[in-house]
């Protein structure tokens, strides 16, 4: 056997053998146990308990943010093909590491984290943001024959809450009334794992408290009395006679859990009003900034998986189809201060050690190239060869061959720069390319989750990453790279 046997050939082989011997041998070993892939490897030590995903929705250009290239200032008549970056570079606290202007605060906390500069998005053809976002968050390309769970749902299912009264999967900042809303809903979901593990949605972090306290206008006294009334009536009902019943009991148990959560002191974790004014103001660059503030409070009090999104709305946010330069400046102003503050605050309180923070986007942007080299896809933006109007100055096309992912805490090596993109167009990943399976496996690795975590749906195992493939990037954690 001098060749690696692909997973499916192996499965077929095992099946053939089973056909010949098992059925005859009238063994009681269930067949599925040979054909699926449950493992009994020893547990991995975890490095993090909490994940914060800072989601740059809409396609953040790496060349305008964390991987700047040659700066070409605007002048009327400049050629599009010359424009690699529309901002000058600025140094960061890490020697030799430069960011794009406007990200100085984040640059200042890079001694606490790492940057991956070689993320390659999937090639999904004609680009649709939400499809790439679905892929990033579930690790599967839509559509799938079953509903794939969000990364946060896997984590919620496998690890449960850190603090039992804080929902283990919280998603902040995204409304579902915008364009492509249905496509957004498709991955903000626990899929076949069941709604129990689905996201607890907080579109507006400043009203987060409303989701975890008694209904508006209801006093605590009334809230307690109402629950007692229900319990008393339910217990007196004749259906309670005659033995136990698991369905009824699980219903009553869930009501009790919810009552406890809504009546618990932890609810104030969701209350941004508890923060000192100056802290609140530091974070408050808008909804995203306040999301970072709430993420900090949740991480300090036992959140498990928390995402904060800059919000996706077609053609808004990072999705710059025109005025790319001006809008990138605005987006940087939105994220720079609160993210840096989040890292600092968690570091100072000691929580950064056990909190893994990830900043990522579904893909990058470029002034010229749509898609990636060699895989042409349909252009979605008209970009003139010669820029006569400033609104054409910026990164307006969707680029899938290189983008940046930042990570802090949770055992991540400090000050590390991993991978590289070309300095000339196309600014593709040219060293240590990273794909989504590896990103997910690295996150699971940090949490101590088994790389082959899976769930049997419709009779077959469905893995956290397709076929259980993809390896964590151990270099990020400062461990010896295993080839």
């Amino acid at each position, binding site marked *: *056997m001098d060749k690696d046997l*692909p997973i*499916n*050939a192996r*499965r*077929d*082989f*095992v099946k053939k053998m*089973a056909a*010949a*011997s*098992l059925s*005859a041998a009238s063994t009681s070993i269930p*067949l*599925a*146990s*040979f*054909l699926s892939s*449950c493992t*009994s490897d020893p547990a991995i030590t975890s490095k993090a308990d909490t994940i914060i995903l800072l989601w740059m929705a809409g396609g953040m250009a790496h060349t305008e943010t964390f991987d700047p290239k040659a700066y070409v200032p605007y002048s009327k008549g400049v050629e599009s093909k010359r424009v690699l970056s529309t901002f000058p570079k600025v140094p960061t606290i890490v020697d030799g590491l430069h960011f794009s202007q406007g990200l100085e605060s984040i640059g200042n906390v890079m001694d606490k984290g790492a940057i991956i500069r070689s993320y390659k998005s999937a090639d999904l*053809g*004609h*680009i*649709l943001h939400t*499809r790439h976002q679905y892929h990033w968050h579930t690790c599967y*390309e839509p559509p799938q024959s*079953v*509903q794939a769970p969000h990364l946060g749902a896997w984590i919620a299912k496998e690890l449960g809450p850190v603090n039992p009264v804080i929902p283990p999967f919280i998603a902040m900042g995204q409304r579902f*009334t915008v364009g*492509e809303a249905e496509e957004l*809903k*498709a991955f903000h979901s626990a899929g076949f794992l*069941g*709604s*129990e593990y689905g996201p607890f949605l907080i579109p*507006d972090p400043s009203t987060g408290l409303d989701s*975890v306290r008694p*209904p*508006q206008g209801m006093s605590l006294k*009334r809230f307690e009395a109402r629950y007692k009334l*229900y319990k*008393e*009536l*339910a217990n007196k*009902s004749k*259906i309670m006679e005659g033995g136990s019943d*698991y*369905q*009824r009991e*699980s*219903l009553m148990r*869930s*009501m009790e859990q*919810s*009552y406890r959560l*809504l009546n618990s002191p932890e609810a104030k974790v969701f209350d941004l009003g508890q923060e000192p004014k100056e802290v609140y103001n530091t974070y408050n660059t808008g909804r995203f900034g306040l999301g970072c503030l709430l993420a900090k409070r949740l991480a300090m009090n036992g959140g498990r998986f928390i995402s904060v999104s800059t919000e996706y709305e077609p*053609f808004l946010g990072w999705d710059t189809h*025109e005025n790319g330069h001006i809008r990138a400046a605005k987006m940087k102003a939105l994220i720079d201060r609160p993210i840096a503050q989040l890292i600092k605050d968690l570091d100072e309180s000691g929580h950064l050690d056990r909190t893994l923070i990830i900043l990522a986007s579904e893909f990058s942007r470029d002034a010229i190239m749509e898609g990636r080299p060699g895989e042409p896809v349909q252009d979605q933006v008209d970009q003139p060869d010669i820029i006569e109007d400033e609104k054409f100055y910026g990164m307006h096309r969707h680029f899938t061959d290189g983008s940046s992912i930042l990570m802090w805490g949770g055992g991540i090596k400090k000050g590390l720069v991993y991978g590289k993109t070309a300095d000339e167009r196309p600014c593709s990943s040219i060293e240590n390319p990273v794909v989504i399976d590896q990103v997910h496996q690295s996150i699971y690795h940090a949490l101590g989750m088994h790389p082959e975590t899976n769930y049997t749906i*419709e009779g*077959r195992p469905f893995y956290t990453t397709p076929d259980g493939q993809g390896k964590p990037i151990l270099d990020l954690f400062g461990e010896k790279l295993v080839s």
Partner: protein
Amino acid sequence: MVLDNKRGVYQGGKSGPIIVAGRPEESEMFLRVSLPPDHDDVMPKKGKVLKDSEIRLIELWIKNGAKWSDGALKIFPEAELALSQPELPKDSKESHPVDKIMDSYFKEKKLKWPEVVDDRTFIRRAYLDILGLLPEPLKIDQFVTDRDKEKRARLIDELLGDTHNYTQHWLSFWNDILRNDYSGPGFITGGRKQITDWLYKSLLENKPYNVMVKELINPTEASEGFIKGIKWRGLVNASQRTEMQAAQNIGQSLMGVNVKCASCHNSFVSNLTLEQSYGFASIFADSLMELNRCDMPIGKMAEVNFLYPELGSVEAESVKERLLLLSEVMVKPENGRLYRTITNRFWKRLMGRGIVEPVDEMDNEPWNADLLDWLAADFVHSGLDIKQLLKTIMTSKSYQLETTRLENQEELQKGYVFDGPILRRLSAEQFSDAVSQIVAPMYYAAAYDPSNEDLPFKRIWHREIKFDRDVLPEPGKRYFRNSFNLDDKKIRAAKALISVDHSYTLYLNGKKISEGTDWRKVDRLEVADKLVQGKNLLAIEGQNEGAIANPAGILFAMKIQYEDGTQLMVTSNDKWKSTDKLPEAGWTGTKFDDDSWQGVRNYGSSNWDKLVNFTFEGPIREFARASLVKQHPFMKVMGRPTRENVATTRDEQATLLQALELTNGEYFNGVLREGATEWLKKYGASHEDMVLNLYQRTLGRNPTEKERGIMLGVLQTDEKEEALQDLFWSMFISPEFQFIY
């Protein structure tokens, strides 16, 4: 070295054979895979080492002679395709065929028949199962006091005859199975199509099941959405091409066979091969399909075939011809599997557990094969009359037994023994409709409206722009104007309908005529006496609430009927004008100059469903049935699936997110508040009436003395509305309400 065919396996590697039949300890294959994972010679070299169980299997196989199973991939049990046409037991005293079969089942299991439920429990169960609604108290009383021995069968007939309500309940069941929904991924780029209109009409006229299947497989424009699948923009995995989706969905929904696993590689949950699923998918493809294993082409072209070739050939030149052939082959009476699959689904829906489980794996052993095949065969003999099948099950004593209590979920799995129906949770739709029936509408608007009165109005609001793009409007006040001219004719009647998201004040010719704060409701106005000949002016001050930009819009229609029989319609449309600046006094009158105002924007209909009461005709409906409503966060959390994939079983397990939604969800609590106000208006004078009504309408029974005492005690307060809301809440949360006993 090759291991996926016989020759390769026996030939071995470079150094010769690797298997010594009967002697694992001398077989290179066994020895190498058994080495420790870090050993230099361990096999496989790359990828994962084998699991212990796999190594044991190899050992066992070699010991047993290392025989290769030629063509025998059929290692999983398969159900007979044809129905067995079982004869009914002759020695039973039971009169109903289902009960005759169950009588011998109970005898064989040495079980006694469980008790039959009382009339109150039965009528609630029957209503919920046929109409998805709760019976009114008066109806319950009449039924309970009715002395007719055949009253249960009569009730079932009567309910099955309530065609619209029957359709609006069962629509959800079919939507789940046929992956049909009003919103969801795919619609945005035209990659998906509804079959709602076709489905609604099919259920309304009780179309025979074989006709439905034929129309799904060889579709008209109205039913093609099912096999068309969901197409996302861009490239998709080979196993998710729409042709493959068609094969997978027909397999799962209609035939109870898992094609999904075999559309990527040979299945390891059934005997299906990659060739078979590609052959099946090729029926729907207009060009040759190349087989892909795990998304990699393997250089082999698919040959058109159906999974069950014994039913007949589906080979033909064009897709159109093949679909016709497939539709005919599928519905043949010999294809018992088609009829068994749907019969089993109905049994599960009515009894809580299928005769075969999971319901999509119809090769599994039924707990009573005679029962399943008798029901399916009877269904075929009845002309595939779906209502008749429901009636057959529901008139049996077996359906009318008390629900069984289960200590844990495992009792439903392997070794399950029937001991009466399983306790079922109200579905998201049943729960919502019951709340609508009892306290106040959960939903005012439907995504699909069977009445379909098309009024030419648009949902308008002030146009808001950011970076040259139309965006959702910011919260705040906006002002709107529209003028129209009336002929010099006598007006007989003039009615206006208005609904504004979120709130509004309406002026006609400078006078305030209406205001509203609930965007879900329709206000109906008589305006004949406020109109003048010549120029008239409508003005609206609208308010968008909330903290961040969100949908807002005005819906307005006015119908003016003249004495001479002609009529004029004035509606909200893009000719209206608006501003976001507070206008000067007089802006509601005809004389005001609105030249500086801009044209409004039509915000379309994607954010709002059709208000069922936004109509000049017909009876005013009280609420929109939940099955017709677009997926909504409340229903989603209560278990209504997102129908991106076929969903044949709903999770009935209570969850924390559900409990949170019920406990502090603004939506549900808002409905309770609205209901309390209404109830106080209606029964305010008598606490007794309120308590009695609440019990009768939610639980279908009178309160016990104790329950009555507790409730009356709660109402002894000055805060009556709040007290009543809390009573509602306690009732809706209770297990007695949430389960079908």
